[in-house]
Each structure stands twice: as C-alpha cells, then as structure tokens.
C-alpha cells in the first residue's frame, strides 16, 4: 500500500515542477502500471516514494508508515529496482545479494533458498560468482531485481524494469510480478510499453508534465474513450489534451 498526498517537487527552485500535487493510493494485491511520455515525472515520483528525493510538499506513506517520520521502518517495506542498474560493479553477484540480505536482516536459511530459487528462474547460477562489472545490462538488471526481492517486501517498485531483458527473463519477471500481486502485495512499475501495461496491469496511472491525468483500471479508461480503438490511441489522445 503506497499513498501520496499532495506531493510536489521542483528540481531547481525557480524552475517548473517536475511533479505537481500528486495524490494516489496504490492498493495491495494489484499490479499498477505507471505510464507517461519522456520527462513526465515517472522516475521523479518513484524516487520520491523510495526516499531518494525529498518532496518539497506533501507526504508519502508505505503501508501506513510515513517516509519522513519513520524512514527506516518504511524502507523495509519496499524493494526498489532503479532504472540504471550500474551500481556495485566491484562486487560479485552473490556478495551483492548477501549485502542486501544483511541490511534487510534476512534470515540466512531463507536467504539461501531464495537466492537459489531466483538464480534458477533467471538463469544466473553461474554468474553469481562473477563480478557485476562483467555482467551484461540484462544480467545487471536481474541481479538488482533479485536484491530487491530477497527480503520479501510488501511493496515492489520498479523503474522501467523490462528494458534489456531477454524474452525468457522478461517472462519470468512478469510472472514474478503477477505472483507478487496474487499473494496480496502491491507492484508499482513504470513502463513505456503499452502492450505490457495492457497485459499485465490491474490498474494504470497516466502522468503527463508532472500531473496525474488518469488513475484507474484499463476498462474504466476504455469506457471514458469509447471512440478510440486501442490503448495507444487513447494514450496519444490523453497526452495531446494535457
């Protein structure tokens, strides 16, 4: 459960607002797609939710825990996969995962079985003993996903997670997102690929120029725009009006 209330953020103090008065509730048990054109404010919003940026105004709560007043408790509730996976290049894959497990206080037995399980799904067993600097883009993406899921977070946040993944890995990741939501937890991810959003999401948030212009299920969206044939047309229509 993620809640944003009146969240605004300006990068340089005089400039335009990168996100402007966002209000949203992302309920458990659902996959929520976050879509919008380049520069709409998706990454900014996700960074605010995860505590990387401080909002100028407004509050963010994760599972009812306020990011400002109880940051550590709140941060334990989510796992975050950032848009550029080029971090910790000097660590070996397994060292990185162990680092994540340690900072989230994961039980060693659980840690071992989860690593084995996910490594198998992502076909990463051999790569774990190698340094992340030797990984391909997709492999880096996979190891970051694994690190974010080790502690079984209630909320899972991903910024454009599917870029660079091979078809099998993309399928596995989508499967994992579905499982996550089916277990009654929430998934929030940003994407540009409308087909993915269409197939995967229970609800979508469309953002443009820092403002939410639609929040609801895809069926609701189609009802609102009966004239348009498919999601792409609806999206283009929405953006052009904003």
């Amino acid at each position, binding site marked *: 459960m993620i809640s944003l209330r009146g969240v605004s953020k300006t*990068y*340089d103090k005089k400039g335009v607002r990168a996100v402007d008065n966002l209000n949203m509730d992302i309920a458990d048990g659902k996959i929520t797609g976050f879509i919008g054109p380049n520069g709409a404010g998706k990454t900014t919003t996700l960074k605010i939710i995860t505590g990387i940026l401080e909002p100028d105004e407004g509050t963010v709560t994760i599972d009812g825990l306020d990011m400002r007043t109880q*940051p550590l408790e709140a941060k334990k509730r989510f796992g975050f996969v950032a848009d550029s996976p*080029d*971090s910790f290049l000097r660590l070996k894959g*397994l060292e990185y995962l162990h680092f994540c497990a340690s900072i989230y206080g994961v039980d060693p037995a659980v840690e071992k079985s989860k690593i084995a399980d996910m490594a198998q799904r992502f076909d990463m067993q051999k*790569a774990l003993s*190698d340094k992340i*600097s*030797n990984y391909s883009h997709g492999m880096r993406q996979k190891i970051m996903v694994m690190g974010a899921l080790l502690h079984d977070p209630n909320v899972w946040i991903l910024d454009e997670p599917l870029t660079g993944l091979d078809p099998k890995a993309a399928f596995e990741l989508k499967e994992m997102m579905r499982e996550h939501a089916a277990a009654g937890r929430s998934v929030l991810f940003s994407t540009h690929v409308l087909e993915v959003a269409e197939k995967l999401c229970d609800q979508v948030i469309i953002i443009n120029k820092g403002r939410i212009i639609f929040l609801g299920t895809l069926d609701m969206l189609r009802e609102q725009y009966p004239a348009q044939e498919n999601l792409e047309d609806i999206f283009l229509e929405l953006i052009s009006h904003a």
Partner: protein
Amino acid sequence: MRKMWALTRVLLKSGAAQGYGMTVGASTKKKNPVMTAVLYIVILVCLIPYFTMAFTSGLNITKALHPLGQDQVVLEFIFLAGSLMTLVFGISFILSIFYLSTDIQTLLPLPLRSEEIVLGKLIVTWLYEVFTSGLLLLPILIGHGIGARWSVLQWLLGALTFFFLPLMPLAVAGIFSMFVMFLLRGRASRGMVMGISTIFLLAVVMLFSSAGGYMGSMSEMTGDNAIAEMLQNLAGSVIGKYGKLIPLLGPMTKAVSQPSILWLLVVIAGNLVCVGVFCLAARVLYLPGVLSMKESGGRSRAMTAAQQEKMLRRSSPFGACLAKEWRTLMRSPVFFMNTAMIGLIWPVFFLLPLIFSALTGDGESLFSLLGRAMYFLSEPEAAPIVVLIIFGVTVFGAGLCMVAGTAMSREGRSYTFMKCIPVSYRTQLSAKLAVGVGISAFSTAGYGLIAMIYLVIRGLSPAAIPIALLLSLAMNVLVGCVNLFLDLAFPKLNWENEMVAVKQHFIPIIGMLISFVVGGLLCAAYGILVIGVGMNYIVVGLVLGLVLAALAAGAYFLVMAFGQKRLSQLED
C-alpha cells in the same frame, strides 16, 4: 576539421571540463555560492606561500645569474621541467582520457574519424595542462621576467611559448600510449590500463624524490658562490642530460631570451609537426587499441557449496556496509592506489633510499646513521622524542590518507542506493568512517606500534606506547571526521570515470592541509612544553591526547549530525 572543433567545444563544455577537474566540488544543482567562493579562497590562500616562494626564487636566481650572463638557465629549467612533467603525467592522463573515459562509448559510434576524436581530446588535455603547469611554473617565469627586465615583446613571446610548451610532450605521450595500447590490443583490460597509468605516476614520484635527493646533496656545498655554482651544475648536468630529450628546448629559450619571433615560429612549427605525426599515428593505432579493450579478466563458474557457505555468513547491517565499503575500495585499482596505497606502503619509500645508497656504495654511512638513531631512540630518556616522532608521522600519514576524504565521492551516482535502504545514515557513514580511519590508523599507529615494540625491547620506557597510541589514534579519528565532513559537504558524485572521484577532487587536499596545520600546532605545543620548558612528557602527552580525543569525539558527532541532514537533502 569543423567536426573536430565542434567536438572539442563539446568536450570542453561538458564532461571533459568536469573530467579534468576544472569544476570544483559539489555536482548538485543548487551550488551554495558562498561555500564555493570560500572554497576558492581557501585554495588560493593555500597556494599563496608556494606562489611567493616560486616567484622570489625565480626573481633572485635570475638576479644572481644576470651578471654572469647565464640567466637563460632559469628559462631552460622552466621549459624543461614543464616538458618532462607533462610528458610523464601525460601518459597516465592520455591513457585514462583516450581509453578509459566512458564518453568514448558515445563518441565511437559517431561519424567521426579516429584522429578527430583523439585530436579533440588532445586539445582539451593541452588546455588543461597549460592551466596546471601554469599554476606551478608561471610564478617562476614571472619572477624571472621581472628579474631579467623583460621588454613587452619578451613578455608576449614568453606567454606564447609557455602556451605551446605542453603540446609537444602531450603529443609524444599520446603517440607512445597509443603505440603501447596497439601492441596490447586484445589483451588489455581496463584494470590493466589503470595499472600502467599508475606506474607512470609512481615514476613521477620517484623522479621527484630522486631530484630532491640531488638538490639535497647540492645544498651541502657552502660558500658565497654556492647558489651560482649549484645552478651552473644544474645547467651543466641536468639540463645537459635531459635537455636533449626536448628538441624544442633551445628554440623555446632563444625565442624568449633573444627575443626572436623567428624562433617562436620554429617552436610553433615543431609543435604542429608533432601534432601531425600524432594524427597519422592515431589513424593507424587508436581504433584497434580502443576497440579491443576488455572490461576485466576472469570468467564465471559456479561456486562450490563451501564457498557459498563462507560468503553467506550472517552479518549485521553495519558489518555488511563495512564489507561492501572495503571491497569496493580494495578492488578498484584507481580507488586503492589513489587513496589507500601511499599510506600502506610508505615505509617502502622510506627504505628505498637506504637500499639505493647501499647499492651505490655510500650506504655505509646511512646504515650506521640509522643504527645510531635506533640506539639513541631506545634509550629510556628518548621516550618524549619517540612520542613526538610517532605523532608527527601520524599527522603526515593521516593527512595523506584519502580514504575518508573520498568516501562519499566514491559512491558516484549509486549514492541513491544509500537513501532507499533501511539502514540509518549514521550506520552507513560510520562504516565509511571506520574504513577510512582504520586504514590511516594502520598506516600510522600500526607501524608506530611495531617500531615502538622493537624499541621497548631494546630499552625504551614502555609508558611511551599508550601515550603515543592515544595521540595517534585520536588524531586519526579527528582527521577522518574532518575529511568525511568535507567530502559530504562537497561530494563529486556525477562521474563516469573513477579517476574523477579521487584524483580530480580538490577537497581531500584541503582536509590534508587542515590536518597538517592542526597537527603541526600540536607538535609545536608538545615540543615547547616537553623539550623547551622541560615538563613531563607523560603529563603533556596525556593532556594533549585527551584534548585531541575530545576534539575527535566532537568532530564525530558533528559529522554524523551533518551527514544525516546532508544525505537526506542530497539530490542529483
């Protein structure tokens, strides 16, 4: 050609300027103008003593040599020093800028010819070198010009010659580096290239230290004509020996001292020829070398169960952060060599002159000197001196250790990770501090302890050990906190190339100066009270140690409080 100029402009304006350390400190958008101004003023103030010294020596030596008609020796020296420095530094620079910086990934796919890429990069490096060698050598040149009563034309020619000075050595360094990388094609990995470039840096250090030794032996000559004699000697031997390496040394000197526009034209023509050869070499050598670079060696294989078991041992969040910090530092050749290595291997540098002198024959006296020093220091009465020496070494070693002073900058853009994990900033910063202080304490108090144990066995009063350790450890913590504070205040986070975080970062140098000043004052206080006034060294050491410890504790709380606030506000 047009493309090349466009590229140069872009390189200058964007990453390159930052890459070459032209911008200082914070990469955050909201730069605090007051802090930036203060920073520049501090740097300037720190450099003033050097500027005055260089200026007056240029002036005085010129005046001393003027009657002998030998004053162009100073010019020769400036041009020679500038050339050699640029040549050797240039190799390590060029390797990192031509082969390691990530903008290559963006440039290679563009419709640019390889010589356009490297020429653009060469020009940017050249301008940067003009700036750095200007900082070092211009004060001497100006002093010389005033001493030699230069005409307007000479000033103009001097400036132009100085401007062209680094170009040829850089082009030669570029040809050399491209040739080496061409030979290594298919085998060179990034780590290896960094290693090579560091070896050249160490070569510079050795060069300077042996030059220092040479000067030292020269300065033993006394008498009225000592300086003149020394300079004649310098002119005869050093310039005679190395001057041949720099074919343009004669023309450059003549252009300014005669003065002669014709010789300047020769200088410019020589440089252009060199750049031409550089471009031809680039056409053949650059692409094969840069395209075949590997990320790093090694291949993946599945781990045995035992290896996994060992790696997955349970650790606390603090322990995990500590391990991560340690590994990222130790596994990056750039980080390790530029921050920690000097602290860890300085005894080797200390021993090298001994070994050299032993090899060259006059080692007898040095060894017996050392033996006598050890004998003297193991006397019970020598305890105050031993404490002072250990503390002095600490001031020096802790100042030189750049681990805490780059702890934040080493994170780079991944620092955002620090903000979204459920580990308090205090814990994360403590881990950074622990690694920094640990390494600097090992390189000072650690070596000191070994030396003292040896001396105690030989008769030194054991009371010296706790006093020296207290002073040394407290100083290490204090310096570490100051450095971490400065790096938090002005981190360099927006880098593509690890070099930027450690080498092109002015802040740790300020931390070093602060530690030298504070440490120097404390050394002086100790010296005056114990050796001058004759107070008991245990009392003085204890009091000073407790004062230092209190300062260190204060600095720790300050840096933690500041760090928490700073990290929560830090944005990219």
